[in-house]
């Protein structure tokens, strides 16, 4: 008597449904804009223009998207193993230590193309180690990973404040930040891409860590769907009992998965530190760890979904900043409301329109939902 699970064509599942969710989110956001007395269509225009209007703007959008790809992948990897890693924020923050350590140590002696791989390793290792503790506690002591990772965000934040104020800050400096990285600690920009297309980019921070993010997306896909480890992670994620039955070591898989997740979150630190600010300041993660959760939800934990979802949130960040600048009635908080609506409809209410669409497709063409019109012989 269960309602049969109708399989929808992939383009509907991964294209149409997210698109409908997004449109609804924007319609509701439009009403919010209307409520504060602005024209929603003009606001949408400014938002879009601000995000994609020029090479400069696109570069900014992609710069933000880079952060979200890393943190989104981190959340997605853990999701596949049934773990909810809320600690991306803290893992990325603390991984900044690894990046800074490499940059500050070698920026005067080594070229960027040597410090970059070193910094990638350092960021990944520190992020992984920060995720290891909650993972161990979950695997061996049964402490819930949601609680421990969120606590570890606070611990990371406090440690970083201490280190930046008391240890890493150069003596003469007022602001709690490290000294600026020299040339060897700065990543090359990707502005030339836009310039070669005839667009002008003045000072956008888009850098090669964007390419690293894309590479990681591919590697995550490979890991999840093409390796034995990924198979074990997915088994664990769908059914811990089946994993036990299949002889998969629960503790080992939890720890390994969380370390991979932490490493991905940690790599996010490369983008703002070596790619943009060329120093480490307080709170450089700026919520990217949490946006990663929304991105992973919206992207269905699939790299091919996470990249566009990251670009969407990059657009909201970049275009939203422009919007707040252009429309005095719309503050930064309003942008957060719009982001929240997108998260609500794309993540939490993801399946709201699914039954209706399912029925529609079933009546339009039964074969498209993968069901035989007349049921075949039972066995």
């Amino acid at each position: 008597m269960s309602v049969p699970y109708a399989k929808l064509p992939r383009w509907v599942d991964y294209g149409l449904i997210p698109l409908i969710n997004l449109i609804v989110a924007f319609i509701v956001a439009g009403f919010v804009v209307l409520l504060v007395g602005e024209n929603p269509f003009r606001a949408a225009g400014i938002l879009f223009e601000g995000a994609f209007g020029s090479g400069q703007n696109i570069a900014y959008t992609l710069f933000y998207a880079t952060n979200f790809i890393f943190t989104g992948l981190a959340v997605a990897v853990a999701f596949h193993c049934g773990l909810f890693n809320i600690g991306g924020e803290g893992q990325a923050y603390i991984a900044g230590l690894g990046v800074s350590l490499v940059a500050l140590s070698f920026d005067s002696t080594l070229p960027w193309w040597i410090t970059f791989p070193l910094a990638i390793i350092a960021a990944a290792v520190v992020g992984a180690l920060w995720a290891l503790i909650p993972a161990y506690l979950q695997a061996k002591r049964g402490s819930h990973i949601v609680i421990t990772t969120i606590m570890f965000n606070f611990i990371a934040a406090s440690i970083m404040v201490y280190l930046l104020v008391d240890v890493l800050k150069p003596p003469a400096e007022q602001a709690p930040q490290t000294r600026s990285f020299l040339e060897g600690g700065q990543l090359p920009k990707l502005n030339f891409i836009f310039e070669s297309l005839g667009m002008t980019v003045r000072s956008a921070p888009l850098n090669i860590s964007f390419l690293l993010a894309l590479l990681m997306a591919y590697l995550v896909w490979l890991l999840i769907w093409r390796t034995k480890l990924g198979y074990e992670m997915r088994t664990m994620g769908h059914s811990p009992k089946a994993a036990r039955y299949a002889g998969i070591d629960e503790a080992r898989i939890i720890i390994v998965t969380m370390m991979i997740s932490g490493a991905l979150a940690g790599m996010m630190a490369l983008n703002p530190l070596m790619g943009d600010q060329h120093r480490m300041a307080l709170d450089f993660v700026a919520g990217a760890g949490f946006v990663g959760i929304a991105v992973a939800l919206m992207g269905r934990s699939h790299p091919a979904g996470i990249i566009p979802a990251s670009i969407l949130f990059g657009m909201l960040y970049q275009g939203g900043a422009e919007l707040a600048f252009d429309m005095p009635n719309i503050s930064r908080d309003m942008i957060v409301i719009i982001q929240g609506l997108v998260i609500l409809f794309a993540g939490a209410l993801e399946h709201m329109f699914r039954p209706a669409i399912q029925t529609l497709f079933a009546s339009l063409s039964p074969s498209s939902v993968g069901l035989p019109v007349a049921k075949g012989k039972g066995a």
Partner: protein
Amino acid sequence: MAEPAIELIGINKSFGAVHANRDIHLAIPRGTIHGIIGENGAGKSTLMSILYGFYQADSGEIRVAGKPTVIHTPNQAIQLGIGMVHQHFMLVPNFTVLENVILGAEGEPLLNASIAKARGELARLEREYGLEVDPDAIVEELPVGLQQRVEILKALYRGADILILDEPTGVLTPAEADHLFRILKQLKDQGKTVVLITHKLREIMAITDNVTVMRQGTVVATRETKKTTVEELAEMMVGRRVLLRVDKGEAKPNAVKLAVRNLTVKDSRGVTMVSDVSFDVRAGEIVGIAGVAGNGQSELLEAISGIRRAESGSVELDGHPIHVTGEADPGELRDRGLAHVPEDRHHVGLVLAFEENENSILGYHDQEEYLNGVFLDIGAILKDARGKIEKYDIRPTNPRLKTANFSGGNQQKIVLAREMEQDPGVLIVGQPTRGVDVGAIEFIHRRLIEMRDLGKAVLLVSVELDEVRSLSDRILVMFAGRIVGERGPDASEGELGLLMAGVHKEAAE
């Protein structure tokens, strides 16, 4: 002729593209026991859910006592005098019987009055129908048979004239089932109408006045029970002739493959579920464990297969110990030739969200033939899956389809194919045909006998007594965590039933 209690006229119901009920016509005469029989997915439960107001029919008419009605909610159904006893009880385990009976029918904010009223009502129902239950007992402390009685009482307390029972005997011992049938007959004699949904042909023959056979969402036939036979019903259910008897030759037991000694296992709450159990399984025989669900069979299987840690005792596989009290690793046991078809294929034996081919390597995904370094060898896995699909007649035949889209019987075949094709020395099978349609049961039974004849040791646990009797060469009966007796395959059902209920006939035992 009087108006039928319930009449369904041209009922249609679709879920998406699945036509679950197709033009159903059904009349249930007042004061009769009416059986509805059919395989899983034949549409029995959907039809009853429409009658009880869980679903609305797309088209068609329901008449209760001759009057056309529309039933939108279970509450409306109750007001029309329709009561339902669900397969999975809808009781609050830590409430008393009385509290459960009045739940949802409390009447007023203070419970005193309604409890007093319910107490009187229960006493009356007890007198009239022989439904004895202690009204102050906590429901979770009652045996399953009595819990079911509470469900019946709930329906009657709400004034049910028509009682629908969905697979009511699945959890009962034969004796409890007999008692239930006596109660149902009494209800009938008092003028109530009973609708019995089941897939057990024997029950239909034993108790019903009329029987309706459903297949693929349609009513195949309605017969007077006296004028039909088990064979005819089975044929109508499946749509072809089926072999109800399992043909098998003599067992040729050989060396001991699996030796269980003094095994004691606790469940996750710390309750001892298996205590001091010892037995052997030899190559070339099927040892069946009979028992009512929940008497420790599940825990026994889990301990032997390394999923659950045992408290004490030992298990030897081919003369070498399995670390059942320590870190037994199901993966290592597989390498040593112990294959396991778990009871719960939905959560343990399969990952329903996986593609079929991914499930066909579950547990064996470490083997080199499926791997390419750290990568899965997708080509090899698909080829392997296609081979199993063909050999085990798994349908649909697409190994890339999500496992959730396969029927129960085909899902079970996926598990069986995976475990049997590894050519294990010992095969442990839990509930091999639970939720599996008749056609597939025949196939699965044949494969199990084949495994035996190939010289494998097979340990079979099933709550279907018929299944244990027809497959096993030796039958062990489990009750309250102990093996209370061993019988040959020719032991009578009555004798096994008594053992399953914990009644020892021989004083010597």
